[in-house]
């Protein structure tokens, strides 16, 4: 094989795209006026309409959500890198990797849906406030409540690590426990619609701060873990060659 281009090199390029993507996500988070502080679900239709009509907010909503539209789905590259590592694990079937792959399209598709609803709400803010509120509700429920795929992903990865029974496993054991912990932290957000106030509401402690905090932490920790693993893989392939 050609020494200069190993298969894993492509993965390393994809891996180093991640900090750039993460940077855009941070920008989106702070640019979107609905996140800092999170919009309250108790706002009336007129207040929601006024929020979108506010000349301070409107351009920030539009540009942040256009950015989100561009780069949000970029997470799939990272998730696919994890799939590649899962395929290296000592499993008898590829089924866990298939599960992870299935989830890695489902989750981002729902984020994308939320992004579209936000953009639609901002497209003609002068329309009937009831309609603006409807789009706003749809966006927040899709964004906050749709945690099923993320939770399942963490559990599938944890399972894969537990079942990876070899002398030098691909990921260390603690990554599995960490993923289960993150899954537990994200899970309550599924019940976001139960209340308009309190910790479960979409601006609440559990649904917004804990969930998004857990996802950010997951991203940071998994980046380090996956990065280390890919570089170790490269060294192994070099010595094997």
């Amino acid at each position: 094989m050609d020494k200069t281009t190993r298969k894993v090199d492509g993965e390393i390029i994809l891996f180093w795209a991640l900090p750039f993507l993460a940077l855009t996500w941070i920008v989106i988070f702070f640019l979107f006026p609905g996140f800092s502080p999170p919009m309250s679900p108790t706002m009336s239709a007129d207040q929601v309409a006024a929020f979108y009509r506010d000349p301070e907010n409107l351009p920030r909503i539009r540009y942040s959500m256009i950015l989100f539209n561009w780069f949000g789905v970029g997470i799939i590259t990272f998730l696919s890198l994890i799939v590649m590592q899962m395929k290296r694990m000592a499993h008898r079937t590829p089924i866990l990797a298939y599960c992870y792959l299935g989830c890695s399209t489902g989750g981002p598709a729902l984020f994308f849906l939320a992004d579209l609803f936000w953009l639609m709400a901002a497209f003609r803010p002068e329309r009937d406030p009831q309609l603006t509120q409807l789009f706003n509700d749809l966006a927040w429920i899709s964004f906050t409540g749709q945690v099923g795929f993320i939770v399942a992903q963490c559990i599938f990865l944890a399972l894969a690590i537990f079942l990876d029974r070899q002398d030098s496993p691909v990921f260390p054991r603690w990554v599995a426990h960490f993923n289960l912990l993150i899954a537990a932290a994200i899970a309550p957000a599924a019940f976001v619609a139960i209340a308009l106030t309190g910790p479960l509401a979409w601006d609440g402690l559990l649904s917004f701060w804990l969930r998004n905090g857990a996802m950010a932490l997951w991203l940071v920790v998994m980046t380090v873990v996956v990065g280390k693993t890919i570089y170790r893989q490269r060294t192994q392939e070099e010595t094997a060659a």
Partner: protein
Amino acid sequence: MSLWHRVAWHCKNNPKIELWIMWWAMFCFYQLFGIVFALMTRVMPPPKPWWDHARIVQWFNDNHYGLLWGFGIIFLVAGITASMNALIAYSMTRMSVSRVFSYIYLAIYSLSTLPGMLLTAILLTVGALRPDRDPAIISWIYDAAFTGFVGTMGVFFIGTSVWMLAVLLDKNRVFPLWFGYLNICNLLTEIVVAPMWIFKEGPFAWNGVIAFWVDTLVFVVYTIAFITLLRRMIVREDFGDGPLPELEQRA
């Protein structure tokens, strides 16, 4: 041995544990799906398509907590659908057909969850979220949710056709031939349901005898059949207990 010990033993020693976990996940998901959609949210059997605004608002009010909690559960467990798609895709890798069949199945069914289930759940959750919303908008949500739920056809139609073709072509008889034919019945239901986009009452409406009841019965029979057959496939699978083939190569 207690149940807990048995489960622990299987996790440690059963070579088919990956498959069994996926099978049980699928099994539990369908139970949960039935409980949430039939008992908690009252989405199945569906309410009437000809109701006026006031009656629709009343339906949302009657089922307020059922909808919110029920779909909360669905949001939480939606990811399990991935495990059953993976199991079925895996079943196709065991057949004497090209891998392309399992990849098509995986791709189509990863997509199907969104229009077939989650979009309805999101819409109805938003509908139940604010009882004081304009009744005209609530009625729009209601229509969008039920037409989307009952009227999602293509993904299941193509997905079932691919599975059917794989089963009929398979020489290893992973699934019996009759199951291949049963797939034809299931994909025909996706055609039969189409008139629900045209009629607001009668046998072809979204709650009609033909478009809903007959189709749902066929789907239930089909689902029970493939859950049972997948179990049989896993039971027959023979991995042995030795080291994994790849690992031997690596060593």
